[in-house]
């Protein structure tokens, strides 16, 4: 009791100080630690405060590993951020825990959002309400080593456009030692990296299936299409022997070291690959199937307003969210972080589309899919295990696929409760 009175009087004191002083409202913004993201956000905050001298924004960051736990614990304890960054796949968790509030339609009209942003933003919509907006989005594309292509007699300016061409290029660029061991892979196979998305959202669709149905509540890949997709993937190691799971530990490490000719990865890897000095690399859209069907996986971190923000803090939080989702903010984010703008008009400028690096990622955004994750790590584990059962235990792909579908369905069912 006495503690509460003390707290109340301190709060009152702070409030009077604030009103008599600079009249500044202070709101807190939380995101995870990633050097360039923190730097970009600092720039955005400085610009925002310049335009809104009555609002102060305090940025707090945490290591990614603890991020979700800390945010949940803090908000539930009535502390923590007013504006928070969250992965689109965590949305149900955050809504279920009453941690974030729907965006007010007057401040953020749904029609405007749907007109201006890429369609994947719909992953932030529940019912008629949007719960957050991204500044930037990430998509997948195929990175290829131009030097390895040239050495293998391939045209370094004509990367594979179809799955067949991909396999052919991988076969040509793979190098083996006398014992038949791969010493330089044609393509990286790393289900723990981005390959899980390539399989789930791209290959399954290209072989004629869909990963989920019934409003994303049913696993649908346990069919002919899913089997073909899994067999295509595991055959890269088993039949064509152009890659090997675990080669150089991680796919991105193999590519960086120049020991893999191709790898599938996202925009977030650009920063790391930009420092490669030993060879020149290029980016191209993920290969289409024989019928020309393309797909890619896109994901994003969105910013949302927490239930903690009330009154004038809520108004300030809305202003801040509007600013960090503005075209100006997206431009800064692209320059500093290298992530693609979430607004069509900001992204699809002639300059960006013609950019040899950003272009392929941007083209992908028009046909990209986002996976409705309920428990991202557990669902990733299922994909990893599905491939391992085939590659390590020699299990029949059909049996392995059925087991994976069953395990993932259990996760989706549990999340519904």
């Amino acid at each position, binding site marked *: 009791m006495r503690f509460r009175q003390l707290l109340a009087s301190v709060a009152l004191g702070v409030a009077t100080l604030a009103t008599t002083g600079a009249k500044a409202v202070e709101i807190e913004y939380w995101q995870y630690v990633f050097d360039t993201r923190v730097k970009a956000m600092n720039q955005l905050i400085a610009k925002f405060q310049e335009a809104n001298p009555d609002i102060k924004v305090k940025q707090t960051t945490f290591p990614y590993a603890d991020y979700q736990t800390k945010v*949940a614990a803090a908000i539930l304890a009535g502390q923590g951020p007013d504006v928070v960054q969250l992965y689109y796949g965590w949305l149900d968790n955050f809504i279920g*825990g009453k941690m974030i509030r729907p965006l007010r339609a007057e401040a953020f009209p749904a029609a405007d959002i749907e007109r201006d942003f890429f369609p994947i933003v719909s992953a932030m919509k529940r019912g008629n309400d949007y719960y957050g907006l991204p500044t930037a989005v990430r998509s997948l594309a195929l990175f290829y080593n131009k030097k390895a292509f040239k050495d293998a007699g391939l045209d370094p300016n004509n990367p594979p456009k179809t799955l067949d061409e991909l396999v052919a290029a991988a076969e040509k660029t793979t190098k083996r030692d006398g014992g038949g061991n791969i*010493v330089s892979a044609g393509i990286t196979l*790393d289900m723990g990296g981005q390959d899980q998305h390539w399989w789930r959202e791209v290959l399954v669709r290209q072989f004629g299936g869909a990963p989920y149905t019934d409003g994303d509540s049913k696993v649908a890949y346990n069919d002919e299409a899913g089997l073909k997709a899994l067999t295509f993937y595991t055959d890269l190691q088993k039949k064509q022997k152009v890659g090997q799971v675990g080669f150089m*530990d991680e796919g991105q490490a193999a590519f960086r070291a120049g*020991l893999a000719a191709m790898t599938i990865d996202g925009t977030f890897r650009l920063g790391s690959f930009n420092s490669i000095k030993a060879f020149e690399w290029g980016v191209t859209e993920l290969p289409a199937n024989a019928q020309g069907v393309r797909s890619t996986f896109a994901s994003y971190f969105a910013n949302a307003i927490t239930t903690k923000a009330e009154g004038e803090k809520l108004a300030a939080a809305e202003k801040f969210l509007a600013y960090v989702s503005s075209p100006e903010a997206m431009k800064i984010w692209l320059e500093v972080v290298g992530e693609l703008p979430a607004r069509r008009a900001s992204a699809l400028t002639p300059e960006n589309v013609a950019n040899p690096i950003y272009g392929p990622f941007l083209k992908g955004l028009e046909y990209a899919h986002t996976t409705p994750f309920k428990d991202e790590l*557990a669902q990733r584990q299922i994909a*990893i295990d599905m491939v391992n059962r085939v590659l390590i235990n020699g299990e029949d792909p059909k049996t392995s696929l059925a087991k994976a579908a069953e395990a993932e369905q259990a996760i989706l069912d549990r999340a519904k409760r």
Partner: protein
Amino acid sequence: MSATAQQEAAPGGLWSRISLGQKQVIWAWGFLAAPLLFYVIIRFWPTFQAFYLSVTDWTLTKPASFVGFENYQRLFNDPLFWQVFRNTFMYLILGTPISLLISFVVAYYLDRVRFMHSFIRALYFLPFLTTAAAMAWVWRWFYQPVPIGVINDVLASFGIPQQPFLRSTSQALPAVLAPAVWAGLGFQVIIFLAGLRAIPVTYYEAARIDGLSEGAILRRITLPLLKPTLVFLVVFSSIGFLRIFDQVYNINTNDPGGPLNSTKPLVLMIYQTAFSSYEMGYAAAQTVVLFMILLVISLVQLRLMRDR
């Protein structure tokens, strides 16, 4: 002195009526209360809280509601739990005897070495001081396939086929265990050395005068007198292997406990259930089971190895 002073100051008070001995007891408990209270709040209270959580469906974001023994039922019907249970005991059954045997042999011979004794001892102790995470990463690279894996490079140069190590469901667990054993070795060697030094030299002199062989001395004198040391190390290292986590997690961060859960110990399963799936109630049930296992094993070991 102060007692009489107090008696004069407050005649007939409660404090004045108790004896000096009782006062000392009160003072002692007064000072002991601070660490005790700390221990109760930091250790025991969360432990009891875990028992309570294990019968709820708390998920961090949703409020907890009572579900009875549902979590335990789910746990015992989960094939992953039984696999993890087997793995945990494999770490114990392989790890404890192997590490104790090696460390005893090292300590036994190191005890007789005079030349650079402290230096060699320091070398053995060094891995114990190294961060498990850093060590696991180095070993992770040792186990890689060619062209970067040291072990496979050596095998390949002798014409021996590559071994999958961490990419195999049968080799992965011993491969993860090896650095864990190696890391704990230094500590066990030091404890064994202390135990060996504590045995009076006169026993050995008497035995040698009586013409006992070295083997007999080892069996009849050294080992029986080392029993307290051995009991301590067995219990200590058993608990360590039952709680193995950082080596497993770090040697395979992309697929922790993999491949196909073949190296996943119970503690890692608890961690994943709690901090990546956020099923706190279910994780608490797993914690209670781990607590029971540790309790039973420690009690059994203490009983078996007690002095009769």
